[in-house]
């Protein structure tokens, strides 16, 4: 595991280790980029998870103070808990239910599709579905999403069966157990779902994808990633040039530390990311970092949500098994005939008894409430999740009075439902009730929204700097070495759950940040012929740099388009130019290390390739590392070998191979030509020609030695 110096300014610092931050961290580490992840929460591992809702909540959830306002019901029911998200390594991917869906094509073009909607700040994304498709594919493969990559769907539990039967009776067509980032069969060194039923409390079997035990350990194994838990980022600092230089954070003891950085990526979830940018205001950026558009913190989205629970005459036991493996997608389309824009999904959901009491009808009491509670074992439940309208006035600001224990103003969340959200929710309540009534529900409970689990949009993506905070790569328009890597980039929210898109964007962003990719990008651009590379040597033109240059040419500083007229435009413009020069220096520096990195990548690739091709019998387990029973040990070894191969096939990680060979094999035992696949480094090493190869005499090995 890497450990980087506080003064090492060659690292990329990522704030937050959840879906966005954890993925970006691993992707960069795999490419040889040095990364420090600062995570506010502790590191809680699988063995520590608790199958108890409130205990688990206390263990994992973000319970630090937040404040609320607006007409949404959450502000009334949970005034200091606007969001139900995680503060621990892995972020909300520890809590999440793993529904992993792609946006529809029109959901990237909402302004064009929905038109001008009063009160809504609609904007098209600067990317299209076609552009995202390859990144979605990578994300699905990484996360092992069912119904993609030939992975079978999960088996339906009781709750799903009720939903399915009712939905079919209502004529719905697209009904299945979902596209879930939960193993329906063993994959990626993780077992399959045991139907434990506490998906929200951290999956004790590791069947569901979470950055906590996938991305992060993989990244750490490369030696390029350091995760610092209990490290709360307080402020991002910048040089007079405007370029960010590092992050000030409070460590486990509450002491202030300063980690230098060449790039900072913010991924603290959509409430904390804008809070951090706003709290980093300086003389030069008085409204907070990357906020020349005034859009930081604005357009907060949390999805149109609600639940429908229904009671039946006989038992359902909805709490048994996977929490969210069930979906009806027919209403997710955009069909203005329903008198609202956008669509919504209906997904199975169950809560345990303690959470049911807290969330069924917050504030409710008396016989109506308790008779519903007594129906618990006979209940089925679904969650409604649909596109909510981005509104400029729905926003995260710094609370003017309340500060956290580090003295940082807490996030204040304002949200009003848009009339479109309300119309959609009412439609969804009606359809949800119809589904359950079709199979004999005796009572239906339209349950109000829980604290937000899907938080989006507070640093939105935009083609034009005046409309948003980041460009299509999550790079801030204002500061070239400052990135946003979480759901706050979303320009609009779509009907579906957000995390697959967050992960796809993070993989894509890693490709942008990583210097090793510059050459490929350059050739892409050259093919399109759209741009002329500016600097003298086109081979040395990384994409970032070119964008700096382009933007500079196309958009001279315009006075007057900024919403904030108090900003000293000239000074910022000058700073911007200085920033770009500094950035150029950084890019050149990256280039110097690039060749070395490419070498390393090639090495790892070669090793991975060998692992794929050499017949199993040539791999020899290290008996000393095995149990007394040679047959079982052999089987275990073969299983481990197949797993590592499978992983290697999905993206070569030298650390993975290294760990495998270290754990299971003796050094330099089997040789193929001059190469030993068991070099301790995990990559092929040259060994002397006459090394004793006892393993080849082993009977499993016989007849295979010359196979390669």
């Amino acid at each position, binding site marked *: 595991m890497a450990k980087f110096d506080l003064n090492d300014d060659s690292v990329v610092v990522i704030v937050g280790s959840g879906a966005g931050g954890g993925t970006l961290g691993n992707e960069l580490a795999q490419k040889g980029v040095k990364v420090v992840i600062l995570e506010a929460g502790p590191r809680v591992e699988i063995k520590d*998870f*608790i*199958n*108890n809702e*409130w205990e688990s909540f206390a263990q994992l959830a973000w319970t630090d103070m937040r404040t609320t306002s607006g007409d949404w019901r959450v502000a009334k029911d949970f005034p200091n808990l606007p969001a139900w998200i995680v503060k621990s390594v892995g972020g909300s991917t520890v809590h999440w239910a793993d529904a992993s869906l792609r946006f529809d094509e029109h959901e990237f073009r909402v302004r064009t599709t929905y038109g001008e909607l009063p009160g809504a700040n609609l904007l098209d994304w600067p990317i299209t579905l076609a552009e995202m498709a390859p990144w979605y594919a990578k994300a699905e493969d990484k996360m092992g999403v069912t119904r993609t990559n030939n992975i079978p769907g999960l*088996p*339906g*539990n*009781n709750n799903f*069966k*009720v939903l*399915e*039967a009712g939905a*079919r*009776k209502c004529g719905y067509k697209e009904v299945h157990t979902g596209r879930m980032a939960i193993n329906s069969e063993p994959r990626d060194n993780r077992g399959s*779902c*045991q*139907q*434990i*039923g*506490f998906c929200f409390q951290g999956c*004790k*079997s590791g069947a569901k994808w979470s950055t906590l035990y996938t991305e992060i350990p993989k990244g750490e194994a490369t030696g390029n990633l350091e995760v610092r838990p209990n490290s709360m980022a307080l402020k991002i600092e910048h040089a007079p040039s405007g370029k960010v230089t590092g992050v000030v954070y409070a460590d486990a003891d509450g002491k202030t530390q300063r980690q230098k950085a060449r790039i900072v990526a913010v991924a603290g979830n959509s409430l904390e990311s804008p809070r951090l940018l706003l709290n980093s205001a300086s003389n030069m950026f008085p409204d907070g970092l990357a906020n020349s558009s005034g859009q930081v913190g604005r357009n907060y989205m949390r999805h149109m949500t609600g639940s429908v629970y229904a009671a039946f005459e*006989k*038992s*359902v*036991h909805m*709490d*048994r*098994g*996977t929490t969210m493996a069930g979906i009806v997608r027919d209403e997710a389309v955009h069909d203005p005939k329903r008198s609202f824009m956008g669509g919504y999904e209906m997904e199975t959901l169950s809560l*345990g*008894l*303690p959470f*049911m*009491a*807290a969330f069924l009808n917050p*504030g409710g*009491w*008396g*016989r109506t*409430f*308790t008779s519903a*509670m*007594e129906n*618990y*074992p*006979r209940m089925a439940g679904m969650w409604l999740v649909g596109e909510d309208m981005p509104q400029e006035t729905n926003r995260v600001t710094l609370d003017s009075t309340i500060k956290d224990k580090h003295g940082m103003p807490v996030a204040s969340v304002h949200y009003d439902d848009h009339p479109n959200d309300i119309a959609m929710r009412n439609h969804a309540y009606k359809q949800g009730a119809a589904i359950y009534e079709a*199979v004999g529900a005796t009572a239906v409970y339209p349950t109000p929204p829980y604290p937000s689990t899907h938080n989006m949009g507070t640093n939105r993506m935009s083609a034009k700097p005046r409309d948003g905070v980041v460009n299509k790569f999550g790079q801030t328009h204002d500061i070239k070495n400052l990135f946003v890597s979480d759901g706050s980039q979303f320009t609009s929210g779509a009907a579906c759950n957000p995390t697959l898109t967050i992960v796809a964007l993070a993989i894509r962003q890693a490709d942008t940040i990583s210097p090793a990719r510059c050459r490929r990008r350059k050739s892409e651009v050259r093919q399109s012929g759209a741009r002329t590379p500016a600097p003298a040597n086109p081979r040395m033109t990384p994409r970032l740099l070119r964008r700096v240059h382009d933007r500079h040419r196309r958009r001279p500083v315009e006075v007057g388009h900024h919403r904030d007229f108090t900003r000293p435009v000239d000074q910022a413009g000058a700073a911007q130019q200085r920033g770009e020069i500094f950035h150029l220096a950084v890019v050149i520096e990256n280039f110097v290390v690039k060749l070395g990195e490419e070498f390393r990548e090639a090495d790892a690739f070669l090793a991975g390739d060998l692992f794929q091709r050499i017949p199993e019998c040539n791999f020899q387990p290290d008996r000393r590392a095995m149990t007394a029973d040679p047959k079982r040990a052999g089987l275990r070894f073969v299983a481990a070998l197949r797993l590592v191969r499978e992983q290697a096939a999905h993206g070569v990680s030298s650390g993975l191979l290294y760990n495998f060979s270290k754990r299971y094999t003796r050094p330099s035992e089997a040789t193929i030509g001059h190469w030993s696949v068991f070099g301790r480094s995990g990559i092929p090493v040259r060994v002397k020609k006459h090394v004793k190869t006892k393993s080849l005499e082993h009977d499993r090995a016989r007849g295979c030695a010359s196979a390669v």
Partner: protein
Amino acid sequence: MREVDRRSKHSRRTFLKGAAAAAPVAAIATNIPLSVEDAWAEDATALQPATMKTLVKVARDIYPHDFLVDSYYITAIKPWDDKAAKDPAVKAMLEDGVKRLDQNAQDKHKCSYADVGWESDRVALLLDIEQTAFFKALRSDLVVSLYNQQALWPKFGYEGSSAEHGGYIHRGFNDIDWLPKT
């Protein structure tokens, strides 16, 4: 379908354990379900025994479950005594809140709150104070302190922690048998 045994084997033991914290040993030894009249309330250190008894009655009226004996409500209310001991403001809120309830009951029914005969009459009295800090604090605490008691989960058909039993994969996650064929 596999159903949950509501008289779960643990219930007696956990019942005793749960009640032990709140009730004197003598009351348990006789194994008579505890009632508001029992001596446990005398144990309160900060609050008046009568206040504790009324609070338990209020708790039942807020979340009435006729299959739950008083011990569950006592367990849920008992921590307020400790909170009152630590914080005079809490103590005042509770004592004053109960006093007001009793006063309202006197005015309407000529008896204390706990002695009002019908639940619906007591609920009417609670509705009058629904917006007070006293009621809000009591209710929002109760929704956790009552329903989070493991001992009462089987009575609601909820089985709690499942990882240590290997999940539900072999314990009926998909054993529903009454749905119409689709």
